């Protein structure tokens, strides 16, 4: 297996997957809805939150990013995979000297690239709105609010976007894993949403685990905690953007990134185990 050739094939498959994805009406609709929702947060200024308004807009934007990003990640990855199966373009592709792992990795990276675009657009829109409202607030309340040049650390808005993107990567990878043994779109989407909820609430299992006595139940909960990634780790928006003192260390960000990459790779490899035996 020539690694350079392998990377070229993965890049080509990822490229077509991405092109297929951005041509889908669903992606464009969801992107527009998300932008509209993030932009609509400015209408809440009539409540006169003062500087709290910026916090509100940020939370609103981060919430929209997670909510619509999760939906998009699940549905787009499912559709991209099953389009290839149902239209039998996968048959043409895999009849070439292409490894199934290359095909799956290409699909994953194409979907992940789509999520990068989505995350970038939402983050840029959110930052733009925050900047505009910040200027308005500074004009109204004066420069005494400024601590270090601005009220918001815009780099952290993008850092949060990056961490969410890593999370979308895990979602796309486990969607591929489910799709690798599933026969229908619907089954894949439903199971993936259940997994999303489990991963989102996984901290409950971790809390339970810490309060449990040694025994098989503790081992079971520990096992579940390891199988399902903990999505709460990625939700550090509160520590970012505003609070300089609580800001997470760079090493923490790297650890979370590594955690996301590990689960993404693990799910793609698990998908490969199923996909190897799947009839195309």
């Amino acid at each position, binding site marked *: *297996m020539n690694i350079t*050739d392998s990377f*070229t*094939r993965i890049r*080509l*498959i990822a490229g*077509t997957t991405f*092109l*297929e994805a951005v*041509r889908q009406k669903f992606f464009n609709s969801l992107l527009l809805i998300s932008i509209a929702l993030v932009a609509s947060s400015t209408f809440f200024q009539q409540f006169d939150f003062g500087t709290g308004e910026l916090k509100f807009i940020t939370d609103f934007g981060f919430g929209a990013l997670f909510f619509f990003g999760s939906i998009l990640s699940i549905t787009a990855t499912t559709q991209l995979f099953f389009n290839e199966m149902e*239209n*039998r*373009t996968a*048959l*043409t*592709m*895999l*009849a*070439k*000297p*292409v*490894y199934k792992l290359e095909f799956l990795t290409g699909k994953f990276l194409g979907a992940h690239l789509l999520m990068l675009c989505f995350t970038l657009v939402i983050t840029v829109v959110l930052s733009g709105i925050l900047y505009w409202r910040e200027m308005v607030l500074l004009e109204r309340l004066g420069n005494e609010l400024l601590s270090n040049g601005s009220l918001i650390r815009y780099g952290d808005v993008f850092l949060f976007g990056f961490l969410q993107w890593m999370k979308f990567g895990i979602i796309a990878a486990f969607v591929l894993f489910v799709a690798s043994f599933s026969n229908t779109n619907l089954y894949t989407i439903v199971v993936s949403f259940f997994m999303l909820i489990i991963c989102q609430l996984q901290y409950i299992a971790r809390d339970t685990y810490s309060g449990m006595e040694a025994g098989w139940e503790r081992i079971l909960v520990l096992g579940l905690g390891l199988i399902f990634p903990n999505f709460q780790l990625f939700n550090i928006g509160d520590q970012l953007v505003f609070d300089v003192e609580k800001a997470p260390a760079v090493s923490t960000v790297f650890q979370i990134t590594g955690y996301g990459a590990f689960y993404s790779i693990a799910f793609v490899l698990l998908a490969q185990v199923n996909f190897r*035996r799947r*009839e*195309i």
Partner: protein
Amino acid sequence: MATPAICIRNLTKDFAIGMRGLKLRAVEDLCLEVGDNEIFGLLGPNGSGKSTTIKIILGLLEASTGNCEIYGKPSKLVDARRRVGFLPESPYFYRYLTGRELVRYYARICMVARAEIDAAVDSVIKLVGMTEAADRRVGTYSKGMLQRIGLAQSLVHDPQLVILDEPTAGVDPLGSAAIAEIVRELKRRGKTILLSSHLLAQVEGLCDRVAILHRGKLVREGRVDDLVEEKDAESLVVQGLNAEARAAVEAEIKAQGGRLARVEKPKLSLDAYFLKEVHRREIEHVTQQEGEEEL
């Protein structure tokens, strides 16, 4: 002795059905050999195991037992597919690409050297007669054009073995004849072609050898002429005999110890008749147009 293009030995494929794992046998103890530079037809009704066999040859399915080799390499190895081109039945391609972009894309997937890609793409597009439509989007192609561009993508990396799954399914007789001519041209270029088809009349005129599958088992295999000829009879095609002469011929046959089995008018196949008529009309049309232009 030359290595056969495809060598299948005692191949059996079972599919597990349902939760209880009941087995459905799709192919049973199949032995088959396709020689180099041969056009080989895989025939059989629906569900006879043709597609399963093709998928095993392409390494898309693993055999339950037995083995399959392509030019001496186990077909399940990706490396064995480097010399194989494949056109699936009713191919579907990325609709937003043009024909040329599509063929180029698959050329890159097959790692055709960058310096050779343009020449390779142009060459196969010309071979399948798609030069004029190559820069149109695939989404606008007719069924016949899709088959042709599908054929082009299967040939772009210059494979030695070309596998065509129902290459003329849903294509009109003119398109089918054009595809058949491309297949003959591939043979002239030294390629091996394995094709599965339901259009037996076309296979008959095209294939060197055929195998007939039924319920996953090999029923017959051999040269087309050997399989279809009536071994104990010969036909004489004569013209210009009157009734007396014919009676004399019949009497002579009897005198020589033969038996006149049947007397019939030689017929063209409907395929050949259709192509002859369309070709004649086409020539008339062109001549008429040229005449009008001269006026």
